Structures are given as structure tokens and as C-alpha cells.
């Protein structure tokens, strides 16, 4: 090795050594372990190294697991849709309706700030709002719509969708806000100038140019909701188990690590597929806004 190469390598190791070790130690090796264990066999009360597809077969044939996967997908999709329905107009309002930068930044911070509050706290808040002694029930009783507290609001899938939407909506607003912010106001003027009113201008100019933000936001909220296990245990009901809770059970009470690993591997592949698709469609709509 020439002194020059030596210098290069010592510099390389100095700068990139620790991050690379960190990545392999805490990310790559655990993934490999998870994948390996998913092929093991369970011999109560222990698991023995093996290479067989029984666990995966169980995941896809046992209706219990398929059902929980589908339910999780449904909940995550609903959360994405509601977050989009609320988040897009909000971001649009901040960028195009609010005139002063000060007010805009303040409102944007108001949307983002909950991210600094403990996740658990934010989920727990909805227990208080929706519970039998909660704000919603008290309000409805005060207005006289109901005369005794209703248990309908809490411990079901609706409560879960509400909670998860609330928790993850900043992840929808942020990318859309960024995408809308980059659209030059001149383009909207140009559209008006060419004879197109506000509605069609939105459909033909604003929406296509912010599509990347929509895809990014939908991907984030979907994947985050898909992997959530706190909301189901706080506000979800007996039919509210999500796939993450099932995994948790396999590693805990059920003591079936191989099956848990197989389930985790399936989730990982699902999420990776979604991210790949979203990246593709984002790249497809990628536009040079200079």
C-alpha cells in the first residue's frame, strides 16, 4: 500500500467505520437473525434450528393470521385516506390561503408540534375523549342527545382509525406542505390567464405538481399505521388486534418465535413492496421545478 492509499484507508475507517459497524450490528444482523429464525421448528418449550417453510405456510393458510393481516391493511388504508382528506386541504390552506408567512409558520408548527409529545400520551388522550366518562359522552349528555354514557365510541375499529389518523396526520401534512410550497404561484396565474378557473386549475396544475407529496404522505401514514400496536391495546376492542399485536404475542405469551419471525418477515416484505411502488410512482411524477 502506498502512503497515499494508507492515508485514504485510515481516513475511510475513521469517518465511516462506526456508522457501518452500527448499521450491521443493529440492523443487518437482526434482519438476518429474524429471517433465519423464521425457518426454525418449534419444539415446546424451545425452538430448534431448521430449514422448513411450515411457519410461512401457517401464516398464509391459518385464517387467523390472514384475517389479521387483511384487517391491518384495511385500518392502515382508512387511516391514510382520512389523513389525506384532512391533511391535503390543511396544507393547501396554509400555502395558498394564509397570506402572511408568520401566521403560516405558526399554524404549521401547531400541526407538527404534537410529534414532540409522547406517542403514548397522544394515543391515551383519545381514551379520555371517547370513553364512557369522556369528553364526547359528557358533551352529548349535556346537549341532551343521549341520557346515559354510551360505550359505542371506544374499544372498536372506529376508535382506532380516529386515534391513528390523529397521531399520524403530521406525516401526511409535512410532505404535501413541502410539495405545495415548491409550486411557483406564477403557474397558477398562468393557468388562470389561459382561461382556467380555480377548480380546474387545481386539478390540472396544483394536484399533479403535488402528487409526489401525496404519495409520500400516504406511504408514510400507511406504513406507520400498519406497524402500530399501541392504539389497538389502548382504544381497540376485541376485534381490533392488528398484526403487530399478533407478532408481539408470538414472542411473548404464545412463545412461538419461529412463527413470529415468519410473520415479521411477511410484514417487512409487504412494507418494502409498498415503499418500492410508491417510490416508482413518485419518480414517475418527478418534475423539475426550477
Amino acid at each position, binding site marked *: 500500500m502506498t502512503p497515499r492509499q494508507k492515508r485514504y484507508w485510515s481516513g475511510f475507517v475513521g469517518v465511516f467505520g462506526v456508522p457501518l459497524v452500527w448499521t450491521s450490528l443493529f440492523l443487518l444482523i437482526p434482519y438476518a437473525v429474524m429471517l433465519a429464525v423464521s425457518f426454525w421448528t418449534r419444539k415446546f418449550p424451545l425452538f430448534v434450528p431448521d430449514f422448513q417453510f411450515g411457519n410461512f405456510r401457517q401464516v398464509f393458510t391459518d385464517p387467523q393470521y390472514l384475517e389479521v393481516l387483511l384487517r391491518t391493511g384495511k385500518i392502515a388504508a382508512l387511516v391514510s385516506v382520512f389523513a389525506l382528506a384532512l391533511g391535503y386541504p390543511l396544507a393547501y390552506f396554509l400555502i395558498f390561503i394564509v397570506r402572511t408567512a408568520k401566521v403560516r409558520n405558526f399554524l404549521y408548527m401547531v400541526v407538527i408540534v404534537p410529534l414532540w409529545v409522547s406517542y403514548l400520551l397522544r394515543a391515551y388522550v383519545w381514551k379520555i375523549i371517547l370513553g364512557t366518562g369522556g369528553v364526547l359522552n359528557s358533551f352529548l349528555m349535556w346537549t341532551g342527545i343521549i341520557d346515559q354514557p354510551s360505550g359505542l365510541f371506544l374499544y372498536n375499529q372506529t376508535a382506532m382509525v380516529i386515534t391513528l389518523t390523529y397521531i399520524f396526520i403530521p406525516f401526511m401534512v409535512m410532505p404535501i406542505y413541502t410539495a405545495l410550497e415548491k409550486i411557483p404561484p406564477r403557474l397558477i396565474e398562468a393557468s388562470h390567464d389561459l382561461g*382556467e378557473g380555480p377548480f380546474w386549475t387545481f386539478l390540472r396544475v396544483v394536484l399533479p405538481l403535488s402528487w409526489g407529496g401525496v404519495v409520500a404522505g400516504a406511504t408514510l401514514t400507511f406504513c406507520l399505521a400498519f406497524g402500530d400496536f399501541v392504539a389497538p391495546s389502548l382504544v381497540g376492542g376485541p376485534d381490533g388486534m392488528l398484526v403487530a399485536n399478533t407478532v408481539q404475542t408470538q414472542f411473548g405469551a404464545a412463545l412461538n418465535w419461529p412463527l413470529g419471525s415468519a410473520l415479521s418477515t411477511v410484514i417487512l416484505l409487504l412494507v418494502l413492496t409498498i415503499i418500492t411502488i410508491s417510490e416508482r410512482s413518485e419518480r414517475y411524477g418527478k*418534475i423539475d421545478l426550477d
Partner: protein
Amino acid sequence: MKTIIQLENVSKIYSGGFKAVDGIDLGILEGEFVTLLGPSGCGKTTTLRMLAGFEEPTRGRISLDGQDITDSPPYRRPINTVFQDYALFPHLSVLDNVAYGLRTGKRKLGQALVAERVKSALGMVGLLGKADNRPGQLSGGQRQRVAMARALACQPRVLLLDEPLSALDVKLREKMQVELKQLHQQLGITFLMVTHDQKEALVMSDRIVVMHDGKIAQIGTPEDLYDRPASAYVADFIGASNLLHGKVSALSDGFAEVDLDGAVLRGRLADSARGLAVGDAAVISLRPERVQRVTGSESKESLSVFEARVMNRHFHGYDVRLDAKIGGRYQDLAIDLRRDSIAMVDSLPPMGEVARFAMAAADALVFAEDQQ
């Protein structure tokens, strides 16, 4: 010719009280090429934006073909704009950009008609081969042409051009000036352009509107503005002028002599300066290129002969710029001498010396001092 656009006492006052446009009256004739000219902040762009419908006048009335359009939104005006930065839709192909205004909610043209119009618009600007490109793949000049084609495809009554050539380099800009002018002559559409570049305005326009602090300083043909500026401001803005301050020392028959503490210059009285009397403060405006070098001791009635001290000399290729000082207050005087022959170099006055110069008295204009 009939008036197509009429602005009556139009003002734009922004919150905070800034008067961007201050009560302007302006009529534009059908088929004319009119330029709004002025430095930044003079209100020219605001005027254009009010015509396009992007800004609402605080006061006044704008009409098109005799109809009041003051309150109608931009998408209901048969007016199209070529934006300064072109504002092409980056997610659409050149073809779809040009077709944008032909496929709107209300203007439902048939596929064939749209295709035909797009083709003719792109052909007009010589970009038929680029129809499937995205704007991001085009050069600045090509984008400019797409912006033109997009606006013209809508067949507007009036085409607004907001500093259309300012983003191009000098050579291309000069080429596009000629092309734009030819396009205007071919189409017969009314063009209204905004620019801060007086050369561009002189080359392209039928009439120029010089604006200053939200008001119209003068309206006229390029020749009018150049030869008969109404004020020292216009004289200075249209082509460079030396504005020299002094006192009127004599008056005769439409001409005045202005004393600059020692040097006396003769000039023609501007229309607005008819009321000047001997002893009044005055400004005399001299175009650098109209001053000549005098070597003999010739002195004619029509010539204004004066002495100035040459301080510096700059080579400009086509001509030589002399920085000189004139009068007892050593006012700056720029003189451009044409280098029509290499031999003229020998006749250049030496630096640091006093030399004699002259110009036709009719070419120097005298204004009252307070007009500045």
C-alpha cells in the same frame, strides 16, 4: 383605428399606503405595439398585472372593446400573458402546454381543431420538432418561444408581455426582439410589453409609455421620446443624457442660453419650459453622441460651442467615451466620439487638457429645474 384598451384614472394602492400606480389614463389602439417603460418600482408591472386581472385596481376603470372588465377575473378575459420566467407547466409536454388554453372547461374545442391550432402556434415559433419535450429539456430561448406559442394559441385580443426577453443573453435577446416584432406585424394582434430596457422599447414599439413613480411621464413614438423628451427625466431615461444644472442667461426665439458658472451652452427650450425667464434655474440635457470635437475656431449661430476639461477616456470599440468636466462647478459631462477612422485617434484631445466641443443647439434641450 379604434381603441381596444382604455384605462381611466386607474390607481393601485397597496395596504401600507404604497401607491404603485397613481391615476393613469391610457388608451391603446387595436393592432398597436405599446411598451410600458420605466425603472423597477415605477408601476409598469402592476399596470400590466391589472390588465391581466391578477391585481384589482384600487380606483379607476379598465375597459376592453368598450366593455368594463375591471372586476372580471383573469380567466374571463380574452387577454393572454407571456410571463417573465415563462411559467410553463413543468409536468406537461410542450404540446400540452400550448394546448392548455384550448382545452379549458369553457373553451371546448374539437380534438382536430386543437391539434391544428397547436401545430400552427408551434410552427409560428419554429418549435414543431419539440412538441413532445418537457419544458425542462428546452433552452431559455426555446422556453420563451413556447410561452409565446401558448399565449398566442388562444388567439387573444391583447397579448401582454412581461419583460419577455430579460432572461435571455444579449445576442439571443436582440434576435428575439426582431422575431417578436415580425410576429406582431404578421398577426396584427395588439401587443403590450413591459420592460426596463429602453433599447428594447425603442427597437420594438409603435408607442412607448414612460412611467415614473406610478405616473405616466410621457407617451409617444420612439422618435418623439428620443428627440423631444417632455422632461429631463425622460431625456435621461431614453438614451443616456448629460443633465447639466445652471441659470438661464439669455432667451431668444425658442432658444435659451444656460450659464454653468463659466461655460455657456445654447439649447432649445422644451415645450414645458416656455415659461422660463432670464435668471431662472434650468437643466440642459446633452446627448453624449451628439457632441462633436471642434479643432478650429469656427462659430456658427446654430452651433453651441463650449470648452470642457477631459479627465478620462474609455475605448468602446464603436466609439470613444470621454469623461469631462464643464463649468465652474465641474459638472460631469460624458461625450461619445465616433471612431469612424483610425485617423481620428490622433485628433482626440489629450487627457487633463481643456478642449473645445460643439453640438447643434437644436439637439440640446432646456428644461425648468423643478421638473426633475
